[in-house]
C-alpha cells in the first residue's frame, strides 16, 4: 500500500477521515514529537487494533514530523496546528505547558468529529512510550465500557511527591476511588466523556488551563462516569524543571485541586470511604534509585518558615494545627524528624477551607503551603530512606487512610463560613483518631 502523507487540518475541519480509535499525541512546547512516540502509536494501531479504523492525531505539531509514516503505510495521521497564543497567557511560571489545555481541546474536538469511540492521549516528548501504552489506554474503553482510563506509572519512591502526598490522597478521600495519578498526564477517554468535556465553554479558566488532566479526572469521578486505571510502566519526565520554582508549581496544583473541590462540593460531601479502581496492565518493580539529597535544605526551609511564617499560617490554620506544626519543628532532630500524617492531612484540609473562605488572599495563601509541604516531604524521605517499594506503598496507603478518616473534619470546616480557623477554640474539630486507627 502506498504511503499516505499526514493531513494538516484545523480543529474545525469537516472533511476528516472517519475513525473508531484515535491515538492522540500532544506535541511538546516547541511543536516537536519524538519519533519513538509516533512509531509506538503506529505500531499499536497496527498490532492491537487492526480490525478497526484508526487514526493518529498530533495536536500542536509544528515543523517537520519524523518520517515514521514511511514505515507504516497503513497509518493515517492528522496534524493540528499549535494552539493560539491566547491560551498562552499565564499568571506566573509553571511547569511549562500553558498551551496544553487548548491542544487537548483541539485534539478531542477532532477525535469526536471523526466518530471515534475511544481516544488515547500521550505526550509527544515522553520517551518511554510503547505501543502497549496506547493499547492499555484504549482497550478498557473499547471492550470494558469504561469512560476514563487514568494512567499508573512506575515511579521512583521520591518521584511525584505532590501526586502521592497531596493529589492522590485528597482525590481518593473526596471521590472514593483509588486512582494513583489524578493529574492524568496520559489518558484514555470514551466518546461519551469527550462530548461532556467539549460541552464545557471556558477551557481558559484556571483549573482547566493549568491542570486539564486533573479537571478531566474530576469530571469523570464527580459525574459518575466509569473510571479505571492502566499500569503503563515508567514515565520519563525529561527536564521538566519548574520555571517558577516549587512554590509556583505547588500553588497552582493546590489552587486547581481546591477550585475543583468547590465545584464538586455536593458530590464529595455525600461520599465516604474508598474502593480500589479496576486496574489493567501488569505491575512490575524496577530497581530503586539512590536516595536523593536535599533533605537538609527542605528541613532548613521548614524550620525557617516556622520561625517567620507563623503570622501567615495563623490566618489559615487552626490553633491546634499551628501548635502541632511548631511542636513538630521543636521536636526535630536530624534523622528523627517526623511530620505526622494526621498533621499533614489537617494542614491540607485547612488550606482548602481557607482557599474557599478568602479568595482575595489566595496569591499569598497558597505559596505559604510550600514550607509545610517541604517539611512533610523531608519526613517522608527520611522515613522511607531504606524502604523497598512495598513499604513505601504502605506508607502512602496510611496517609490516604488518614485523609479518609479526617474527611468529616473537612466537611465541617468547609461548611463553616466566616470564622477563620485560627480563631477556633482548641479541640473543636473532629476527634483525633488513635494511632492504631491511622
Amino acid at each position, binding site marked *: 500500500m502506498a504511503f499516505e502523507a499526514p493531513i494538516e487540518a484545523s480543529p474545525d475541519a469537516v472533511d476528516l477521515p472517519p475513525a473508531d480509535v484515535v491515538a492522540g499525541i500532544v506535541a511538546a512546547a516547541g511543536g516537536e514529537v519524538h519519533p519513538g512516540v509516533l512509531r509506538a502509536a503506529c505500531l499499536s494501531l497496527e498490532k492491537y487494533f487492526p480490525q478497526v479504523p484508526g487514526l493518529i492525531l498530533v495536536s500542536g505539531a509544528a515543523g517537520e514530523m519524523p518520517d515514521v509514516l514511511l514505515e507504516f503505510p497503513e497509518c493515517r495521521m492528522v496534524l493540528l496546528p499549535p494552539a493560539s497564543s491566547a491560551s498562552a497567557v499565564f499568571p506566573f511560571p509553571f511547569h511549562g505547558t500553558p498551551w496544553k489545555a487548548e491542544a487537548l481541546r483541539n485534539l478531542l474536538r477532532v477525535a469526536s468529529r471523526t466518530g471515534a469511540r475511544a481516544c488515547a492521549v500521550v505526550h509527544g516528548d515522553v520517551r518511554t512510550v510503547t505501543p502497549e501504552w496506547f493499547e492499555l489506554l484504549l482497550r478498557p474503553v473499547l471492550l470494558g465500557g469504561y469512560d476514563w482510563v487514568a494512567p499508573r506509572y512506575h515511579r521512583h519512591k521520591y518521584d511525584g511527591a505532590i501526586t502521592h502526598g497531596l493529589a492522590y490522597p485528597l482525590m481518593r478521600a473526596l471521590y472514593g476511588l483509588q486512582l494513583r495519578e489524578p493529574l492524568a498526564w496520559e489518558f484514555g477517554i470514551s466518546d461519551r466523556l469527550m462530548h461532556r468535556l467539549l460541552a464545557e465553554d471556558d477551557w481558559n479558566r484556571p483549573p482547566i488551563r493549568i491542570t486539564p488532566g486533573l479537571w478531566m479526572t474530576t469530571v469523570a469521578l464527580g459525574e459518575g462516569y466509569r473510571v479505571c486505571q492502566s499500569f503503563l510502566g515508567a514515565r520519563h519526565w525529561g527536564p521538566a524543571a519548574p520555571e517558577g520554582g516549587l512554590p509556583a508549581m505547588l500553588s497552582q496544583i493546590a489552587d486547581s485541586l481546591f477550585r475543583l473541590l468547590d465545584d464538586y462540593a455536593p458530590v464529595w460531601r455525600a461520599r465516604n470511604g474508598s474502593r480500589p479502581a479496576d486496574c489493567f496492565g501488569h505491575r512490575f518493580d524496577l530497581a530503586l534509585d539512590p536516595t536523593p539529597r536535599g533533605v537538609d535544605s527542605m528541613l532548613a526551609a521548614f524550620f525557617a518558615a516556622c520561625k517567620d511564617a507563623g*503570622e501567615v499560617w495563623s490566618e489559615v490554620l487552626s490553633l491546634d494545627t499551628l501548635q502541632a506544626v511548631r511542636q513538630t519543628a521543636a521536636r526535630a532532630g536530624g534523622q528523627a524528624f517526623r511530620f505526622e500524617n494526621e498533621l499533614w492531612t489537617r494542614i491540607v484540609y485547612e488550606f482548602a477551607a481557607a482557599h474557599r473562605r*478568602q479568595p*482575595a488572599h489566595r496569591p499569598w495563601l497558597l505559596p505559604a503551603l510550600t514550607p509545610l509541604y517541604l517539611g512533610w516531604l523531608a519526613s517522608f524521605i527520611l522515613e522511607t530512606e531504606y524502604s523497598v517499594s512495598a513499604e513505601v506503598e504502605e506508607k502512602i496507603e496510611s496517609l490516604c487512610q488518614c485523609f479518609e478518616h479526617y474527611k468529616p473534619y473537612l466537611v465541617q470546616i468547609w461548611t463553616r463560613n466566616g470564622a477563620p480557623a485560627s480563631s477556633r477554640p482548641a479541640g473543636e474539630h473532629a476527634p483525633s483518631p488513635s494511632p492504631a486507627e491511622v
Partner: protein
Amino acid sequence: MIETLQMILEGVAARLRYQATTYLPSLLAALIILVGAWVMALLARWVLTRIFKGMAADRFLRRSGLAFMLDRSGRLRATRLAAQSAYWLILIAGFLTGLSVFDTDLTSQITQSFVFLLPRLVLGGLILLAGVWLSQYLGRSVLVWAVNEGLPSPRRLATAVRILVMFVAVVVTADYLNFARHIFLAAFIILLGGAVLAASLAFGLGGRDAMRRWVEQRRGAAEERAEERSLWNHL
C-alpha cells in the same frame, strides 16, 4: 438695703425667666429631636437587620478579606455594617438638627462644618482602610515570598513594606483632608529618600561582603536544586 437686695433678686429672677423662656424650649425641642432621632435610628437598625440580606455585599466582604480585617472573627456581615451605619447616620443627623434649633452663630458654624467635613472624613477613612488592607496584603505576600526564597529577615522585610504602604496611605489621606499636607509630604520624601540612600550605602559598603556570601550561597543552593530536579520530580 432690703430694697436693693430685692431689686437684685428680681433682676436675677427676670434673667433666669428670660433665659428659661428663651433657651429651655429650644433645649427641650433639641432633646425631643435627639430622642426622636435615637428612636428612629434604633428602628432603622432593627428594620435593616431584618429585611436587608446583603448577600452580595457579604460575599464581597468575605472574598476581599475585609470581613477578616475589620473583625478578626470574620463574622462581620453586611447587614450589621449597613444597620450600624444607618443607626449612626440618623443619630448624627438628629444631633445636628437638635443643635440647629438654638439658631446661634456657634451652632450654625458647628453644623455647617460638620456637614462639609463629614463626606471628606468618610472618604479619608476609606482611603486609610484601603491602605490598611493593601499593607496587610503586600506585607503577607512579601513575607511568604521571602520565606520561600530563603531571604534573610523575612519578617523585617514584611514590616518595612507594611510601614511604607501605611505611610503612603496616611500621606494621601492627609493630602485629601488638607491636614498638614506639607509636613506629611515633606516627611514622606525625606524618609523615603533617606531609606533609599541608607539601603544603597549599606548594600554598597557595609553589606558588600555579606551580600556576596549570601548570593554565592543562593547560587550554590540553586545548583544543588537543579541537580535534584533531574533526579526526582515533584509532579
